[in-house]
């Protein structure tokens, strides 16, 4: 995580273009430029700058935005909440639907239900999210005029972006649920469960599905990071005021402090999710827990 922070810090310093010039304007005097540079701490050596930044982070201070002069934390917080809300809605529907589809498809191998599921899966994994977003805007926003196509004013505005964001995740979850269910249905304990005369529903959900969950959880964890990255695209398409669109606009304005804070935040999430997945693992799999 420390290495990540160094990389994030250096990365952003490498962006060409002078943020001070961008702030004070092209024709500001030399003194003004120097004053602002000093005020922002950009005249100090890189290591000192990094030290100041790190010290701030540990104290919960992510620095001050070059552009607005407000603390970065204050700038990010409301947008962050919006992105998290969108991501949580997306992941909830896609995981639930994906698991249902996966079980449906995996228990009907070779029938139309399976072909239907597999086709949707393959398509869902290949479709560019921003394209789906645009098509949805056209159908629901322009043609049917039933849903808002931008912003985050009410729950209705969340439907289209959340749907778009979840498509690839739903496809991935379906695929892995299906394959790992097929795998676990071959096991001996399934035969035992059937031989006991348990209902097929119980056999599939309690004995088959539960044991296939482990690999599904890994895949969800692995793809959550991709989803965070994808949020940038989706927020752009739907003009959603989250951290993704904030990142793109901050890069354009060379607001170092904001960009490095956002990149650190997104990566921290990624690392955090991996730890979380390990914990869920232990809950699902007693073997790992006792080791």
């Amino acid at each position, binding site marked *: 995580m420390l290495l990540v922070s160094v990389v994030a810090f250096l990365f952003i310093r*490498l962006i*060409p273009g002078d943020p001070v010039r961008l702030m004070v304007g092209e024709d500001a005097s030399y003194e003004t430029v120097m004053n602002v540079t000093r005020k922002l701490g950009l005249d100090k050596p890189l290591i000192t700058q990094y030290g100041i930044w790190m010290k701030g982070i540990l104290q919960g201070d992510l620095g001050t935005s070059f552009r607005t002069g407000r603390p970065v934390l204050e700038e990010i917080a409301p947008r962050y909440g919006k992105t998290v809300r969108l991501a949580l809605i997306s992941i909830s529907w896609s995981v639930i639907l994906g698991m249902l589809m996966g079980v449906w498809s995996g228990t009907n191998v070779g029938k139309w239900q399976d072909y239907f599921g597999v086709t949707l899966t393959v*398509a869902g994994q*290949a*479709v560019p999210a921003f394209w789906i977003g*645009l098509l949805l805007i056209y159908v629901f926003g322009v043609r049917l005029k039933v849903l808002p196509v931008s912003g985050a004013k009410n729950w209705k505005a969340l439907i289209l972006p959340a749907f778009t964001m979840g498509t690839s995740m739903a496809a991935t979850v379906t695929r892995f649920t299906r394959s790992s269910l097929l795998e676990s249905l071959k096991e001996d304990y399934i035969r035992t469960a059937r031989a006991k005369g348990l209902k097929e529903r119980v056999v599939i959900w309690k004995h088959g599905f539960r044991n296939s969950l482990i690999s599904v959880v890994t895949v969800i964890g692995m793809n959550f990071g*991709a989803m965070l990255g994808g949020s940038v695209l989706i927020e752009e398409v739907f003009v959603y005021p989250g951290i993704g669109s904030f990142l793109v606009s901050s890069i354009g304005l060379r607001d170092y402090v904001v960009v490095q804070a956002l990149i650190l935040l*997104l*990566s921290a999430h990624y690392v955090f999710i991996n730890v979380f997945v390990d914990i869920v693992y232990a809950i699902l799999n007693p073997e790992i827990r006792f080791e």
Partner: protein
Amino acid sequence: MEKTALMNQAESGDIRTPFSVFWKKFKKQKTGVVAAVFFVILVFVAIFCYQLAPYGINEYDYSSVMQPPSAKHWFGTDEFGRDLFSRVLCGTRISLSVGFLSVTIVAIVGSFIGLFSGYIGGWFDTIIMSLSDVLYAFPGLILAIAIVAILGPGLTNVVIAIIVFRIPIFARIVRGNTLNLKNSVYIQAARSLGASPARILFVHILPGALPSVIVQYSISISGSIMTSASLSFLGMGAKAPTPEWGLLLSNARIYIFTSLHYAMFPGLAIFLTVLCFNLLGDALRSALDPKLSEM
């Protein structure tokens, strides 16, 4: 020269070479064969796009702006009256070039790193793997965005970004294979026969790692085509008037409220191309490595 029994067998097609085994398994997968055919078409279009396109890609015609699809313009026209069909067709060359160029470099560099890292081990391996851990800690697209933000927008920089964030994937796969094979009996045999490390690495270990590299190659191409389209869509990739699919979609955004065709076709092109390489990758995986199928 007298023919040996083995040569006769080879001519009659009974001999089991790695390729014939692979081909037999590959042929069985209908989707894989369809994807392979589509792949050949894509490459053909990419090479001959300028001959196939009915209009020039930058042929302005202000008398027919934003026309819906018609017999004259199959995919309609854009905001400058340019023929969208020709532009999407020529976008194939850009996307495939970006995909193949970046992934070929990644596959070569990543495989080398993985081979050496796995074979040498020790501190070298530790450093390489920590570096790849750091790159892994950034969500893929975010890393690509950060790299392009530093280097500046443009297709060359998109290729560099894709290379940087995909190298760890190949390095890890090849490293894993190398670690597995390093202590296998046939490598020990080679070593005891006095084979040099270079010979062991490239003649004995590399072919063992090749199936996973080939599968990853196909999947990575679809991934990098998607990344380059995404970056162009965000205004960080190709610049106008390049008919890059992501850029076309980005231009189509403001017209989505009036017409559908502009956004429809470039997206469809990305979708079908990515689909093709994904299916090809799946089929290759089942044909090359039965253990890995359905992963």
